[in-house]
């Protein structure tokens, strides 16, 4: 019987079984950032432990960094203390740190792939739940807590129970104007925000075969929003073409050997999955959320659910979500006014996202009264956009063009919603208060849908707007 990629990578990294039945798993690549690492370093110091393999940890700063001005000290003393702490820790323990002035800084899940650090057949951990992003390369990547960051720093391993594998097939052809973001929002809507508990998601089928690496990353990124701690796509020529020549990619003879090795991890044709879910691509439409978790979503053409159409045990959540969102049961989502448009994040802050939006907004302008910000996921993405003149297309259209960081995806830097502003957002979470105001409202959608909402000032079917 064949094995899945997950099982093969797991076996190659399993050190031993622990007394409680979990596995001690080797984590080949460890990524850290300023929010979830300082306490881990403090724990190491307290225990008198060194970092076991400092060359297997890579750091950058993303959550707290302001995107409008980079002069230090930052105006927020807490943010300033955090970046200084990260610098100090990396220096003291000999960890590679992509700092603000390196030209390589950015959101950790954008930087890892961009640098070629993220590779197939590897295990990756980071103190951030969107670490699942790296699975796009056929890596098994886990979001971890700070005590586990400590464990990985001290031992290059962590304790974890083996996951089951659910194969998710998306076959057929995606309709025009439908993107990777719509695919994952649709999957989460159908399988539920906790449907992936205990599973790693293996994404495949015609849609994923054709997807670029950046599209695969968008989907894998949001695996955790469906409850799956890891999500991955088997590596193929697209993966290898992306990685070829990147700073940390294998070179020369090592490159050939690496490809052979990576190929050996691909799920066998006769492997057995713990579960399979099938989707038909042609049935997927541009999808937007209406509630306070990423599973509360509808197609742009649909109306919101009503208590009558909602299972009894979900009616409480429906009422709570509608109250927060100030929306009515059964109303169309289309036409809902927005005040803010956010383009960026580890989900949709890559070059292809800005390229695709630029193609649509050229010659158009953001609606009056809408604050629209475009935030590249890394300095590399920002530089590539500048080289292509994409930043100027955005500024000409009335977007603010910012420096790299997590920005308005979460409220740890100056980019925040105010009051009950409604934000059309290309990010990954629409939790209450996520974007910085306890009463702020987030509607998740694809970058092109964000652009359409920015231009009209209301939630819009981008296919209709941009065909005009």
């Amino acid at each position, binding site marked *: 019987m064949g094995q899945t990629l997950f099982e093969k990578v797991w076996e*190659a*990294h399993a*050190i*031993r079984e622990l*007394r*409680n*039945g*979990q596995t*001690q798993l*080797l984590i*080949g*690549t460890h990524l850290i950032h300023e*929010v*979830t690492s*300082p*306490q881990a370093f*403090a724990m190491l110091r307290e*225990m008198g432990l060194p970092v*076991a*393999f400092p*060359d297997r940890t890579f750091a950058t700063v993303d959550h707290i960094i302001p995107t409008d001005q980079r002069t230090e000290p930052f105006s*927020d003393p*807490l*943010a300033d*203390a*955090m970046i200084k702490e990260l610098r100090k820790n990396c220096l003291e323990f000999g960890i590679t740190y992509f700092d603000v002035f390196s030209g390589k800084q950015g959101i950790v899940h954008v930087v890892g792939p961009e640098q070629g650090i993220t*590779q197939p057949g*590897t295990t990756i951990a980071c103190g*951030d*739940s969107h*670490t699942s992003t790296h699975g796009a390369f056929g890596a098994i990547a886990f*979001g*971890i*807590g*700070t*005590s586990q960051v400590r464990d990985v720093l*001290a*031992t290059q*391993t*962590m304790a974890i129970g083996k996951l089951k594998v659910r194969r998710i097939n998306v076959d057929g052809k995606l309709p025009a104007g439908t993107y990777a973001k719509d695919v994952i929002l649709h999957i989460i809507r159908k399988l539920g*925000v*906790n449907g992936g*508990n*205990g599973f790693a998601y293996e994404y495949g089928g015609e849609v994923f075969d054709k997807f670029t690496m950046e599209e695969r990353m968008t989907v894998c990124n949001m695996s955790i929003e469906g*409850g799956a*701690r890891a999500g991955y796509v088997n590596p193929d020529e697209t993966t290898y073409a992306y990685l070829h020549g990147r700073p940390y990619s*294998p070179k020369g003879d090592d490159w050939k*050997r*690496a490809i052979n090795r990576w190929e050996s991890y691909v799920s066998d044709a006769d492997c057995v999955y713990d579960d399979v879910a099938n989707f038909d691509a042609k049935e997927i439409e541009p999808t937007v959320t209406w509630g306070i*978790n990423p599973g509360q979503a509808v197609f742009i053409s649909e109306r919101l659910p009503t208590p009558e159409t909602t299972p009894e045990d979900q009616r*409480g*959540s429906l009422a709570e979500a509608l109250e927060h969102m100030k929306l009515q049961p059964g109303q169309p989502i289309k036409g809902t006014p927005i005040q803010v448009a956010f383009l960026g994040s580890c989900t949709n802050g890559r070059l292809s996202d800005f390229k695709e939006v630029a193609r649509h907004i050229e010659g158009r302008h953001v609606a009056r009264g809408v604050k629209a910000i475009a935030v590249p996921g890394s300095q590399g993405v920002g530089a590539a956009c500048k080289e292509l003149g994409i930043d100027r297309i955005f500024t000409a259209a009335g977007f603010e063009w910012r420096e790299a960081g997590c920005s308005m995806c*979460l*409220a*740890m830097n100056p980019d925040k919603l105010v009051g009950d502003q409604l934000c059309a957002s290309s990010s990954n979470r629409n*939790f209450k*208060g*996520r974007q*910085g105001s*306890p009463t702020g409202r987030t509607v998740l959608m694809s970058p092109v849908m964000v652009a359409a909402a920015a231009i009209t000032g209301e939630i819009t079917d981008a296919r209709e707007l941009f065909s005009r």
Partner: protein
Amino acid sequence: MALRKILEVKGTCVSVPGDDVDTDRIIPARYLKCVTFDGLGESLFYDVRFDQNGNPTNCSLNDPRFAGATILICGRNFGCGSSREHAPQAIYRYGFRAIVAESFAEIFFGNATTLGLPCVSASRGDLGRIRQIADSEPKREMTIDLTAEMIRFGDNEFQASIGPSARDALINGRWDPIGELLEASALVKEQMAQLPYVQAR
């Protein structure tokens, strides 16, 4: 490393209702700007406990009848979202020593267990009954027996599941795995030698 064996948790309860209570709700991101976990307890459920003007809401956590509760009662998929350990840290530092819910998000569950904060699951029906008792008799103590995986509350007993590895880790005092992980350093080096990508460049 000798850790305390957590065989049972005893205490009064308070219920924070709702399903899919996420980590941003448990501790809003703006309170993650810190380099230590000290003081996180004060920010627990901040936007649930306080209104826009910083005045206490009528949330159960502000109700003096439930003051001193050490067991938190929640709904389905509790702790979904971020991997931030700040969430269970805030719950622990606020004073809770166990959480009873219908189910837990996976990363949250692992983070909490590593702190010695048991997360036990009960059925939706039993949780409804537990909430009723907690609301009507706020001074009534609950006992969560981790060995037997049972909740005793008043005259009632409810099944409580925690899963074999977390149960083993808690009742045998090995919920923080660092000591055991450190024992295997020779095996780790051996395994790393088999994997080209982890070799020094």
